[in-house]
């Protein structure tokens, strides 16, 4: 680990000042400390933001939710309103990492976490994300866990967050605070696809602070849930996952929100699947027909072809579970 100086911000203004001067925010530290130890990250100054007043969960009008950036993963998962209003969020959180890590890690840090690509974490390997222009060792290397959607020739790494898949499905907004004031960014625009600049991962300006993730209200009754498929039953990242939310009234699907994880360079929203569902009556045949579109546009690599079929089955299974027929 490289040496760094450490300051604790006691309020938002102090944090932004330190951020403007090049300080790096630290929340739970479960991504940052790990990567600093591997010398993938080499911040000169750490700015501890845990004392900032960003630890609240509030229900917004008409039943949306605003989750403060410093709410821990375990607090968010256990929160009664999160569990009743958006089970897809609490399930995605509880299927993430371990109880210990969830006690430390925050919602803001979770959506900011960096890829688990082994070459990214290995400073001796070529990696465009870590060192722009050096190449991508995964492209023709061990790429079983890598992405099949949203990839480029420069980078094929997945975004590893589970909660972010639920946020993408629900069309959440990220609230930001910077030197020039506040702004909101739709979740789909917040995390960036690699293109030719895989080192740019978020639409975050220098020194900007995430203050909250806001989930818009959806018509009720709403059923939602998260399914995660992985190499072992727990404490493991997703090979594939599906976040599904459905509003069914009068026997007809009125609203559908679907996104997939473990397969995209960013959480992968599935508009074609959603469109196939809306206006239809739930049935086993509908779930499979909709899920057949889940891997449209996939570009599998040498070792992850299995993800194409696995993704469709994961989405179909979760539509069935949430939709409640057959």
């Amino acid at each position, binding site marked *: *680990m490289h*040496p*760094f*100086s*450490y300051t*604790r911000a006691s309020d938002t203004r102090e944090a932004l000042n330190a951020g403007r001067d090049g300080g790096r925010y*630290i929340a739970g*530290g*479960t991504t940052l*400390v*790990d990567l*600093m*130890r591997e010398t993938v990250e080499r911040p000169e100054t*750490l700015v*501890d933001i*845990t004392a900032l007043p960003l630890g609240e969960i509030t229900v917004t009008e008409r039943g949306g939710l605003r989750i403060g950036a410093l709410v821990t993963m375990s607090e968010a998962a256990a929160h009664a309103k999160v569990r009743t209003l958006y089970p897809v969020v609490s399930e995605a959180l509880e299927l993430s*990492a*371990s*109880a*210990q*890590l969830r*006690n*430390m890690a925050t919602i803001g840090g979770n959506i900011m976490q960096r890829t*688990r*690509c*082994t070459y990214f*974490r290995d400073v001796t390997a070529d990696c465009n994300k870590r060192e722009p222009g050096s190449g991508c060792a995964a492209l023709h290397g061990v790429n079983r*866990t890598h992405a099949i959607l949203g990839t480029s020739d420069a980078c094929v790494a997945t975004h590893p967050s589970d909660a972010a898949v639920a946020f993408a499905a629900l069309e959440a907004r990220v609230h930001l605070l910077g030197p020039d004031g506040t702004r909101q960014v739709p979740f789909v625009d917040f995390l960036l696809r690699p293109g030719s600049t895989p080192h740019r991962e978020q639409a975050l300006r220098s020194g900007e602070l995430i203050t909250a993730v806001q989930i818009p209200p959806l018509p009720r009754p709403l059923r939602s849930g998260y399914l995660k498929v992985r*190499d072992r*039953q*727990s*404490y*493991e*990242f997703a090979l594939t996952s599906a976040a599904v939310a459905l509003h069914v009234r009068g026997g007809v699907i009125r609203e559908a929100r679907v996104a997939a994880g473990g397969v995209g360079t960013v959480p992968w929203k599935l508009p074609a699947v959603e469109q196939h569902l809306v206006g239809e009556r739930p049935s086993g045949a509908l779930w499979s027909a909709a899920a057949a579109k889940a891997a449209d546009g996939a570009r599998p690599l040498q070792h992850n072809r299995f993800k194409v079929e696995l993704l469709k089955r994961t989405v179909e299974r979760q539509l069935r579970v949430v939709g409640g027929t057959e």
Partner: protein
Amino acid sequence: MSTELPELAAPPPTGAGGSSPAPTRRTFIATSTVVGGAVVAGSVVGGTSLIGGEEAAAAERPPSSRVSLTVNGTRRSLTVDNRTSLLDLLREHLGLTGSKKGCNAGACGACTVLVDGHRVNACLTLAVRLEGAEVTTIEGLAEGEQLHPLQQAFIDEDAFQCGYCTPGQIVSGVGCIQEGHTGSPEEIREWMSGNICRCGCYVKIVRAVRQTAGRK
């Protein structure tokens, strides 16, 4: 997947990466006791012969900070190199070697301790961030000679083989019981999944946690 475990579940040599030869386990224990005593008096740690590899790598005196925390009921005030993890603080500076270093990356749970009552991975916790915190390690669970019920249950159930993961399992189990996630063996397995056991003692670990939770 990058949650892979290191090949050996053995602690790395204390001086790994530094220029001085690694101390033997015996000299390490002897010296750490002395330093442990000095620490209580409020001395500066880091820059001693006990600094870890990461700290030794810095040429100049690396950025350090003063921190006061309570460990197993004892108040400690010390100056730490900012890079020191809570795990290294406990093991290398305070002589509390019960908490183990398995992966040093959040992927095994051997370093589990309670911070302000919550179970966390000490390897990913920077010591400098613990101003005012209450830390409980495996050494702090017993009341005098009286083992914590979960410690006793691990013995009764024979819930370990090599014992390397055991301190982390027990502290994590204490957290799991406090959180109330002990309704069924399945629930315990899921909520204890942050603790890997290379010897595969899971069935008996779950039994020990279940028994202890039931007794409460």
